[in-house]
């Protein structure tokens, strides 16, 4: 630990990005289905970034974000994750 780290004190975990309630629900479901913490954090970040862009573009509130869009984002993320695991499993 260097001097700067000592001065700052113990590091706090970064505050999770707030998501619409559907996003939180999807993350909870994925966690119960076995999604690891690192991937869950990555998915949260993706949903947060997408939601921010959507809200800026359409000047809408968090409630205006369509549930299906967050679901589609999650499906796409889980498929990419799975294909990466399949490649690793097959030694590719």
């Amino acid at each position, binding site marked *: 630990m260097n001097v700067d780290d000592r001065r700052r004190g113990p590091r706090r975990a970064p505050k999770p990005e707030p998501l619409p309630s559907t996003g939180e*629900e*999807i993350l909870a*479901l*994925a966690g*119960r*289905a*076995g*999604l690891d913490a690192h991937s869950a954090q990555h998915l949260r970040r993706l949903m947060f970034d997408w939601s921010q862009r959507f809200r800026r573009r359409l000047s809408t509130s968090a409630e205006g974000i369509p*549930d*299906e869009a967050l*679901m*589609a984002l*999650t*499906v796409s993320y*889980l*498929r990419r994750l*799975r*294909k990466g*695991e*399949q*490649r*690793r*499993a*097959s030694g*590719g």
Partner: protein
Amino acid sequence: MARMLYPARTDIDVMDNSKPPEPVVYGVWADHSTLKRESLGPLFVRISIGLRGPVDGHWRDSYLSVRSDLEAFVRFTLDRESDQISFTFRPAEPTADVEALIERLDLAIELANLHATAAAEAIQRRKAGA
């Protein structure tokens, strides 16, 4: 193209102890090209979609577990004989709502893949530790 790993019971239960077991990754998907609409009288329509990929007993159990985890998934019924998932809706429901249901079904299936893969890993870990 990635090799599809079919986690049949032989992969999990009958392992050669001389080499580490291959990780099992479930990759089941709903084949939308098999989508069938069927009228159930004036009030309801049923949509059935076939599943493709390594559907086995472990995956089916995982699907049922995921399905019971969210009320919105309960309407997606898995037919264990034909490996099809079906759901009903009212003919008056807008197309966008039906498309949202199919999106939700895809999510349930991906969550079942995740669940089944985690369960298979747990089995392999138990066997490796035994």
